[in-house]
């Protein structure tokens, strides 16, 4: 019996020792250095980056360059790219005071949730100095990355637009050369709607449609948070007319997300859409180009206005490696850092002076430059409980489009939602 007892205990002990010796494997295991070896924490130019880019084929090249030029050793941890999962994980890390991660990449939804929570360090004195700040999109920085106290806490890593894309063949067929005004746009929509094809395609699924509602609200000079504003009402009425009065867009797209909308656009069902990014889907389908699908400037309704989005690098307040983290942030905010993002990840530089650099080339540069110089650039309207607010607004809009509620009821309920979530 003693023999078996000893064997069992020895076996258990061996397994425990074996497993205790294990830790996070792979090249990204550096985070262990911060969490398990307090002697090294804060004593070296070494940080841990929580990144969504680790599965990009060019990540290693970007990392090598970042380490060389910032002088900081960068350990990395792969962040979930699935949005709900990522938000839960990052919320947990930040709210628990976890110091194993120094720098995190966050998107607009997370920026809205975190900017007043006190979990992130302000960067205006150390990284986002005046000369850099003036090169960044002012509306976006104010809407998304500035806290109620006026602290700026994120370095945007690129600029992306929710831009208007048109099918040039349909534009030609409509006998038009450009879309400059609201009247041009309505004429274009009507001229290209025939035989089951529509002038406008949207992704009006309830969690997606708020991007388009807010785009039209801005174009009409309204305010997404004020539904007593006549211009906001007019914008939503315009969308209703597109679907129900002029019938230049189908109501059944209330089930569509971007995947479905893009495929229909590629298949020629739509003449124009609002879409993020630089047209990868269209390129993959051989439908991209000046004579096919391409980005155009926003038409001028009451004004020209466009939304931008970004992923931003932020500094965890609990970090024990702040000096090194700031060196890294100074690098990503620098010309070298932004150009590296463009070169390796196709991320269009957020800084206007860097995007003007001759190293940034391609057809996207021309239209981006035009958009930057002629549009009001904003961050999307988001409230701390972002997804709940987005979802409720989407549901209200779908009810209005399907004639389940009137415009007055929509505006009243939308205002209630704003006040509830604000």
């Amino acid at each position: 019996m003693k023999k078996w007892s000893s064997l069992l205990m020895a076996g258990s002990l061996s397994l425990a020792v074996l497993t205790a010796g294990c830790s996070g494997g792979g090249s990204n295991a550096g985070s262990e250095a911060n969490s398990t070896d307090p002697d090294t924490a804060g004593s070296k130019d070494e940080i841990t980056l929580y990144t969504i880019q680790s599965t990009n084929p060019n990540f290693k090249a970007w990392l090598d360059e970042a380490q060389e030029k910032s002088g900081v050793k960068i350990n990395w941890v792969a962040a979930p790219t699935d949005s709900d999962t990522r938000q839960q994980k990052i919320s947990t890390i930040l709210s628990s005071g976890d110091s194993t991660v120094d720098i995190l990449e966050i998107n607009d939804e997370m920026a809205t949730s975190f900017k007043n929570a006190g979990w992130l360090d302000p960067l205006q004195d150390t990284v986002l100095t005046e000369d850099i700040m003036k090169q960044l999109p002012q509306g976006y920085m104010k809407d998304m990355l500035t806290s109620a106290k006026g602290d700026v806490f994120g370095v945007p890593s690129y600029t992306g637009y929710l831009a208007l894309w048109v099918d040039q063949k349909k534009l030609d067929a409509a006998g038009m050369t450009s879309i400059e005004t609201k009247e041009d746009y309505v004429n274009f929509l009507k001229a290209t709607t025939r035989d089951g094809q529509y002038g406008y395609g949207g992704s009006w699924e309830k969690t997606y449609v708020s991007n388009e509602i807010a785009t039209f609200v801005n174009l009409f000079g309204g305010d997404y948070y004020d539904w007593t504003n006549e211009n906001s009402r007019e914008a939503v009425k315009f969308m209703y007319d597109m679907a129900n009065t002029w019938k230049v867009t189908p109501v059944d797209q209330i089930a569509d997300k971007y995947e479905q909308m893009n495929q229909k656009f590629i298949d020629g069902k739509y003449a124009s859409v609002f879409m993020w990014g630089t047209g990868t889907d269209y390129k993959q389908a051989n439908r991209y180009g000046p004579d096919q699908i391409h980005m155009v400037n926003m038409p001028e309704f009451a004004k020209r206005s466009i939304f931008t989005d970004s992923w931003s690098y932020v500094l965890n307040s609990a970090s024990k490696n702040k000096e090194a983290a700031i060196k890294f942030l100074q690098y990503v905010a620098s010309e070298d850092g932004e150009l590296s993002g463009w070169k390796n990840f196709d991320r269009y530089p957020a800084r206007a002076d860097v995007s003007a650099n001759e190293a940034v080339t391609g057809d996207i540069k021309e239209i981006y430059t035009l958009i930057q110089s002629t549009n009001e650039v904003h961050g999307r309207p988001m409230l701390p409980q972002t997804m709940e607010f987005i979802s409720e607004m989407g549901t209200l809009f779908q009810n209005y489009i399907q004639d389940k509620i009137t415009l007055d009821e929509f505006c009243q309920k939308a205002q209630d939602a704003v006040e509830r979530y604000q």
Partner: protein
Amino acid sequence: MTTQNPRPLPLTLLMWGLALIVAFLILFPLWWIFISSITPAGELFSKPIKYWPDHPTLASYRYLIENVGLLPKIWDTAIIVGLSILIGMIVSVMAAFSFARFRTRGLAVAVGFLLASMLIPDVVTARPLYDFLRSVHLYDTYTGLIILYISGILPFTILILQNYLNDIPVSIEESAAIDGCGFYQSLIYVTVPLLRPALATVCIVNFITCLNNFFTPLFYSNGISVLSTAITQLPLRDNMYAVPWDLVSAMGWIIIVPIIVFVAIFQRQIMEGIMAGGVKG
């Protein structure tokens, strides 16, 4: 001697028809995931729908291996799942034996606690457990994950083994004792061999449970990544809304295949073991 009446033809046809419908409902999504995984991204949403791609490719699988670290994830999964099942089985056998063979108030309370723990959703204990693991330096370690995996499979395993043990007569162990067997000898040479069908069943069920476990590795690790959470780490394309469905499908297929193979091979043992251990006579 009685002979069984043959089943009427319409009933047989109805049963076959139902079986085919159920099989289609289960197999078609699997087929769809597979062809999505070998379809180039640009063709994924083409119309009319294609049930076999024009240009089949293994590019998604290659991408997962080269850029998403598929092989290290398989290794991590194998270590965590393998050790969790092994250690979990040793602990479960000893616990089930104690619960089945000894009767004390304390043991009854322990069984009650163990079974009650099955009713607590993971998310309720997530945050305190997260803080605890960090404070004892077990966060994002194999050890920490294995402990959590084991704690997840113990209640079910003990329940099945205990019920199975209840049906094994104590007189067998008493006979072994009369023949000179010690306690551990009796347990290892007499009881455990009799438990073999139930052990096979819980091993298989636990393998599937561990492989499917999403919440634990997601919440309690960063650097260690297993197959079930790998699907959340696929790259975004072009913009934050562009889900790479080709890669998602390939990763989904990689996760599903071992489970399908396992169940196909061991389906009889799974059913027999559950029936034997889960139903009291």
